[in-house]
C-alpha cells in the first residue's frame, strides 16, 4: 500500500486537507511512546489504495519537541512514498525553506499551496509553472476549507518527484555531511537528512540520528561531529537553516510577484475605522442593515414571492398538474403533487424558496468577505469573544456559520485548543442559523410583526451567550493567544465574489436539495403507512401540551433533521394554512432553530469530536431547545402576548 505523509508548519491547513482528502478509516492514536496524535486514513488515488498520515505541524525537524521527533521518525522509519507538504501560500518564503529540509529526505514531494485565496488578498501571485520547473516536482494550488484543488492533488501524487533544492551549505559543512552520509549503512534511507541531523546542536536530536545511523559509539563520527561544531561560531542548525533560507529566498523571488492591492485612501480609512470600538460598531450596524434589506426584504420578499406564487404557482403549476394527470396511478400522482408530494415539499421549497435567498446572501456575504472586513470584525469583537471562552480567531468560523453551519464546523479547525473548538461547534449547532435556515425564517417572519422577529433573535442570542459563558467556566481552561495577520482592506473583486457564490450555491444544490426530496418521500411514506399519525399522537403531550403547538409540528421536526430549512418551510405552510398563530410560530421557530443540526453537520461533528462529544452536544442542544420553547410558550401565554 502506498503511504503519503502530510507535513507542514502549524496552521497551514494540513488537517483540513487531510479530512477533505480521506475517504474512510480514520484512526487517531498517539504515536508510540509520545503524546503526539497521528491521524491515519485511507483513500484510493488512481486506483491505488493509499494510506494518508497526518501529523501535528512542525516549525522544523531539528528541535527536541515531541512533534518534530515524531515527524523525523515517520520520515525515516515508515518511509512514506510521497510527502504532501502543505504550505500557507501567503508565507511561501518560509514554507520553501521547509521544503528544502524535507528535500534532504529523498522522498518525492508535492508542494501544496494552500490558502491561495488569502495570498491573493495580499496581492501575492505565484507563478506555479516556474516553481514546478525549479523544484522539478508538482505544485498544486488549493483552498482546503472549500475543497478546491483536491482533484488536482489526486493527479499530482503519481507525478511527484524528489524536489530539486539547490542549497549551498558552507564547504566545511557540506563536506562533513558528505563524509557522514557515505558512512551510513546502505539500507538506511534519507542519508543526507540524517547526516545533517547527526550534526545538530540539539543533543537529543543528534543522538537519535546517530542511533538510527548506527553511529553511536563510533569515535570517528564523534570526532567529525565535534570538529564540525567547533569550526562554526554559530549553532550548526542555524547555519543549515540560513543556507536553506537563502535558497528559498531565491526560489521565492523567481517564482512569485506582487501586484498592488486594489484599494483607495478612503477604503483604507474605512478599514481602520472598522476596527475602532465606536466607529466599528456603527459600520457593523450599517452592514447588518444593508444585509437585512438586500436579503430579508428584496430576496425573501420580492423574489421569493415571484418564484413561489408566480413561477411555481401560476406559471409552472398548471403544466405540472396537467402532466401529472396523465399518470394512471393515483398513488404516484399523490406522491408528486399531493400534500406530502415531491413538488410542493421538495422542488418548490428548495428551488423556489431557499435557493434565491441564499444566492442573494452569498453574493452580499461574498462582497464583505472579499473586502477583508471580517478580520477587522475579529479585532473589534476579540474581547467579547473572550467572555465566552473564545478569541477573535473564532469570529470567522462563527460568521461562516451564517453561510453554512457544516462549512463553519470544518472551519473551526483553525482554532487551536480543543476547548475552543468544542465551544464554537456547540454554539454553531445551538443557535447560528445557516443562510438556508435564515432565508426561510426571513420569509416566514416577513409576514409577522417586528416584535416577534426581535423576540426570536434576542432569545437565541442570549441563550448562545449564556451557553458560551457557562461552557467557558466549566471546561478546563486551555488558553490560546490571539495573534492574527490582518489582510489589507480592498475593493472586492467581482470575479472572486461570483466564483465563490457559484461554488457555494452549487454546493447547496448538490448537497441539500436531494435531502428535500428524501424528506418529502419519508413524510409521504410515513403518512401512507399511518406512522405519521401515530408519531404525532405519541409526541402530542410534548408538542401540544408543553410547547402549545399543533401536532403537525412533528413533521417539521422530521424534515428539519434532514435539512433545517426544509423543516422551517413546513412551518411556513402551517402558518399559511392558518394552523399556527404568531406566538406559536415564535415558539416553533425557536425549537426548530435550536434543536437538531442537519444530518451533514451531525456527521461532521461525529467525525471531528467523536461519538461522546457529538451525542453530548446533540442531547444538550435538543433539551435546551425544548425547554426554551416551553418556557417561551408559557411566558407568552402568561403575559398574554400575541404580538
Amino acid at each position, binding site marked *: 500500500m502506498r503511504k503519503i505523509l502530510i507535513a507542514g508548519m502549524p496552521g497551514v491547513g494540513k488537517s483540513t486537507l487531510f479530512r477533505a482528502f480521506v475517504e474512510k478509516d480514520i484512526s487517531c492514536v498517539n504515536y508510540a511512546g509520545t503524546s503526539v496524535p497521528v491521524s491515519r486514513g485511507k483513500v484510493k488515488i488512481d486506483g491505488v489504495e493509499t494510506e494518508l498520515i497526518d501529523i501535528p505541524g512542525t516549525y522544523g525537524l531539528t528541535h527536541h519537541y515531541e512533534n518534530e521527533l515524531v515527524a523525523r521518525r515517520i520520515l525515516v522509519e515508515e518511509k512514506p512514498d510521497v510527502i504532501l507538504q502543505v504550505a500557507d501560500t501567503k508565507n511561501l518564503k518560509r514554507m520553501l525553506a521547509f521544503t528544502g529540509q524535507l528535500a534532504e529526505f529523498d522522498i518525492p514531494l508535492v508542494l501544496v499551496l494552500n490558502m491561495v485565496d488569502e495570498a491573493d488578498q495580499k496581492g501575492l501571485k505565484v507563478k506555479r509553472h516556474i516553481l514546478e520547473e525549479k523544484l522539478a516536482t508538482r505544485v498544486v494550488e488549493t483552498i482546503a476549507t472549500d475543497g478546491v484543488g483536491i482533484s488536482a492533488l489526486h493527479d499530482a501524487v503519481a507525478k511527484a518527484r524528489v524536489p530539486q533544492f539547490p542549497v549551498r551549505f558552507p564547504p566545511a559543512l557540506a563536506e562533513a555531511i558528505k563524509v557522514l552520509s557515505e558512512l551510513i549503512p546502505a539500507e538506511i534511507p534519507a542519508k543526507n537528512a540524517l547526516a545533517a541531523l547527526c550534526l545538530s546542536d540539539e543533543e537529543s536530536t543528534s543522538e537519535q540520528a546517530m542511533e538510527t545511523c548506527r553511529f553511536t559509539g563510533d569515535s570517528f563520527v564523534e570526532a567529525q561531529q565535534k570538529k564540525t561544531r567547533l569550526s562554526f561560531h554559530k549553532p550548526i542548525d542555524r547555519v543549515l537553516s540560513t543556507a536553506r533560507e537563502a535558497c528559498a529566498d531565491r526560489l521565492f523571488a523567481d517564482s512569485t510577484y506582487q501586484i498592488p492591492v486594489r484599494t483607495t485612501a478612503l477604503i483604507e480609512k474605512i478599514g481602520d475605522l472598522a476596527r475602532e470600538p465606536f466607529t466599528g460598531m456603527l459600520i457593523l450596524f450599517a452592514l447588518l442593515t444593508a444585509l437585512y434589506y438586500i436579503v430579508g426584504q428584496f430576496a425573501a420578499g420580492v423574489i421569493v414571492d415571484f418564484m413561489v406564487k408566480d413561477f411555481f404557482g401560476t406559471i409552472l403549476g398548471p403544466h405540472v398538474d396537467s402532466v401529472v394527470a396523465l399518470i394512471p396511478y393515483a398513488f404516484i400522482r399523490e406522491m408528486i403533487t399531493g400534500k406530502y408530494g415531491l413538488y410542493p415539499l421538495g422542488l418548490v421549497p428548495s428551488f423556489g424558496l431557499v435557493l434565491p435567498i441564499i444566492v442573494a446572501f452569498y453574493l452580499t456575504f461574498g462582497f464583505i468577505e472579499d473586502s477583508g472586513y471580517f478580520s477587522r470584525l475579529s*479585532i473589534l469583537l*476579540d474581547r467579547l469573544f473572550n467572555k465566552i471562552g473564545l478569541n477573535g480567531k473564532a469570529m470567522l468560523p462563527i460568521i461562516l456559520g451564517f453561510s453554512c453551519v457544516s462549512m463553519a464546523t470544518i472551519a473551526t479547525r483553525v482554532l487551536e485548543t480543543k476547548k475552543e473548538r468544542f465551544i464554537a461547534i456547540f454554539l454553531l449547532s445551538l443557535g447560528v442559523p445557516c443562510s438556508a435556515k435564515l432565508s426561510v425564517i426571513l420569509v416566514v417572519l416577513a409576514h409577522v410583526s417586528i416584535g416577534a422577529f426581535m423576540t426570536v433573535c434576542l432569545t437565541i442570542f442570549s441563550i448562545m451567550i449564556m451557553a458560551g459563558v457557562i461552557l467557558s467556566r466549566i471546561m478546563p481552561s486551555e488558553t490560546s493567544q490571539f495573534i492574527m495577520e490582518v489582510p489589507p482592506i480592498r475593493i472586492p473583486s467581482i470575479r472572486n465574489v461570483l466564483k465563490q457564490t457559484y461554488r457555494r450555491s452549487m454546493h447547496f444544490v448538490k448537497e441539500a436539495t436531494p435531502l428535500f426530496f428524501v424528506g418529502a418521500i419519508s413524510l409521504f411514506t410515513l403518512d401512507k403507512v399511518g406512522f405519521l399519525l401515530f408519531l404525532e399522537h405519541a409526541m402530542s403531550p410534548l408538542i401540544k401540551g408543553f410547547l402549545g403547538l399543533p401536532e403537525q409540528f412533528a413533521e417539521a421536526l422530521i424534515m428539519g433533521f434532514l435539512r433545517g430549512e426544509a423543516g422551517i418551510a413546513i412551518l411556513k405552510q402551517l402558518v399559511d394554512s392558518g394552523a399556527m398563530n404568531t406566538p406559536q410560530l415564535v415558539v416553533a421557530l425557536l425549537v426548530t432553530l435550536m434543536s437538531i443540526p442537519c444530518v451533514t453537520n451531525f456527521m461532521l461533528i461525529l467525525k471531528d469530536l467523536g461519538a461522546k462529544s457529538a451525542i453530548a452536544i446533540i442531547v444538550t442542544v435538543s433539551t435546551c431547545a425544548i425547554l426554551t420553547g416551553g418556557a417561551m410558550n408559557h411566558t407568552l401565554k402568561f403575559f398574554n402576548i400575541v404580538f
Partner: protein
Amino acid sequence: MNTVDITAEVLEAIWTFEEVGSCTVDNLKRRLNPEYVLDDALLSELERSGYVTIHNQQIGLTEKGIDNARPIIRRHRLAERLLTDILGMTPEETEESACEYEHVLAPGLTEAICTLLGHPRECPHGSAIPEGECCKRADVSIQSAVKTLSGMEVGDTVRISYIRSDDHVIINKLFSLGISSGKTIKLRQKFPTYVLQIDNSQVALEKNVAGCICGLKI
C-alpha cells in the same frame, strides 16, 4: 593582566561551556590561549581556592565559583543588550566592548542598566542573563527605556529589542509574522485589541501577547 582578571575570564569561560554541556581542560585552554596564559599551575591554584573542581580533565564550577561567575556573566550580557538595544550595534560588534564593561560596571550601575532595559532575560545571542536583585523586585524606579508594547502609545514607532516569553508557540508565531528582535513596528491601535503595522502588513494581537514584546521607542 592581573590574577583577578584571569580568574574572572576562566570562571566566565567555564560557565558558558557548562551552559551547553560540560567543560574540559582542553576546551578551556583553547578558548583562552593565547590571549591569557592558562597553565596547570593556575588551574590548580583555582582548585585550591575552591572555585573549581577538576576530575579526569573535566573541569566544573563549585558553589563558590558559580557565585563569583554569576555577576560577571550578568554584567557582560547586560552590556551586550545595552549596546544592541540602545546603541544599535549588531550582536557581533558588541563582543569586544562587552568584555570591557564586565570588569568596570559597579553593582549600582548594573542594576540601573538592567532596569533601563526592562530586566531582559536573554542576551542578544540567546543565552540567559542571570537574574539580579533588581529583577526580583521588578524595579521601575528609573524610567525604563525598553518597555513592553503595553507601555507604548498609539502612533509610536518601536524597534523591537526582544520577545520576553517562555512559550515557544508564541515566539514562533510572532517570528512567522515578522515580529522579532531588531524589526521596527508601528503601534496602530491598543483597544479593544493591539494592532501593529510591520512593513506592509498589519498584525492583531491580544494584550497578553503585546506584553511579551519589548522594544525601544524611536
